């Protein structure tokens, strides 16, 4: 019998170790796995690589994560916080304590999708002609210059969904799917915090992400 529902967050995060590459879903407040993010500090992890669309969300959820220098590398698309003063993350970046790879959002999403879909690399026209592709491999297709981008995978994906069943099937509310849906496909261990565990299997029309992509589900009330 399949049961991907785990008892608590500690069980959900078991086996996530220092040095792990961790994808984190979320856009704005939608789909941010805030409870799971907070556990990264509790568990005394360090040397982490975080792959997340807006890195400042991590600072907002768990500022101590950067304050304690638990993160060594970041892949992201949005960097600046709205505040005049730099965030914890920005300070560490300025001081050279964390390295940063910054990408267009669509390229970021597509690299993750490729990672989950067994596509090793792809050519995209986005960012060609900008400083982001300096020194990168370019190639023309049908008169359009494109840049080669490789797939992005990770050890762990953390996401948030509204509802799950014991098969790991996920139902996303509103715009919760965002980056998390692709991240779940690209990580070896996908951990999902949900508002609600459905006792009944989700009906097919409610399955936005099939359980094959999910290893653990934990209920977390906000």
């Amino acid at each position: 019998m399949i049961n991907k529902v785990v008892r608590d967050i500690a069980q959900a995060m078991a086996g996530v170790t220092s040095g792990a590459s961790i994808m984190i879903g979320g856009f704005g407040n939608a789909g941010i796995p805030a409870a799971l993010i907070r556990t990264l500090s509790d568990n005394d992890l360090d040397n982490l690589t975080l792959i997340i669309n807006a890195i400042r969300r991590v600072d907002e959820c768990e500022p101590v994560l950067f304050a304690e220098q638990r993160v060594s590398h970041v892949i992201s698309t949005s960097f600046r916080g709205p505040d005049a003063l730099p965030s914890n993350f920005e300070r560490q970046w300025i001081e050279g304590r964390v390295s940063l790879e910054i990408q267009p959002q669509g390229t970021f999403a597509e690299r993750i999708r490729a990672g989950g879909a067994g596509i090793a690399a792809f050519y995209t026209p986005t960012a060609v002609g900008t400083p982001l592709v300096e020194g990168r491999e370019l190639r023309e297709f049908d008169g359009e210059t494109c840049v080669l981008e490789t797939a992005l995978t990770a050890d762990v994906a953390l996401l948030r969904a509204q509802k799950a069943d014991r098969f790991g099937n996920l139902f996303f509310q509103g715009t919760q799917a965002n980056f998390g849906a692709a991240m779940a496909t690209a990580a070896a261990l996908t951990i999902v915090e949900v508002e609600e565990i459905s006792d009944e299997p989700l009906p097919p029309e409610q399955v936005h992400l099939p359980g094959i992509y999910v290893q653990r589900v934990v209920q977390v009330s906000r």
Partner: protein
Amino acid sequence: MTAPLSREQMAWRAAQDLADGSYVNLGLGMPVLAANYAPGEREIFYHSENGILGVGPIPEPGYEDPELVDAGSRMVTLRQGAAVFDSAASFAMIRGGHLDITILGAYQVAANGDVANWDPLTPNKGPLIGGAMDLAKGAKAVHIIMRHNTKDGGARLVTACTYPLTAPGKVNRVYTDLAVLDVDAGRFIAREIIPGLSRDELEARTDGPLIFADDCCDLIAPELSP
């Protein structure tokens, strides 16, 4: 001279060019205001790159859903006929050339259509790329809303961008507080100018080849409250 257009008036003017039945992505800041001013009889599907096609109005108090937000992280609603999807699908839609127009803010637009809008070159502040490069590259038309000049009077419509590019050669039209200009064949073509602003002055405030359309007319926007 009429006062330069306000933020709302620039957004209003940009909104008048959104055709009935079009699919439109509005960037953060002034562009997203345009949704308030499109003529009501037109059906427009606003795309939000975090995964909505058919963004509706801001919800009434008490009806907000924190899990339904737009690309500016504002809680929104869905219009009738809307669809929701994940980010990979959303950027497939953008990059695949399916959106009719994106309206973006910018620091600079060059006469060859280059646009720069992501790196403010501020010391100790990192870049904010987000989805702008995908939108500028992927949309069928790129419209820009920005003030005609910097705070210290420098040009933003330029011969060549000095800020890092978002996309080369993609801008079709610019809405400023002084004028509406098309970008074509390496020139800015003024289509509308605020009443009382001389062509000489517009030229002085523009750094780059500027010509005036034969039917160049007054740029007149209604009074709008912020």
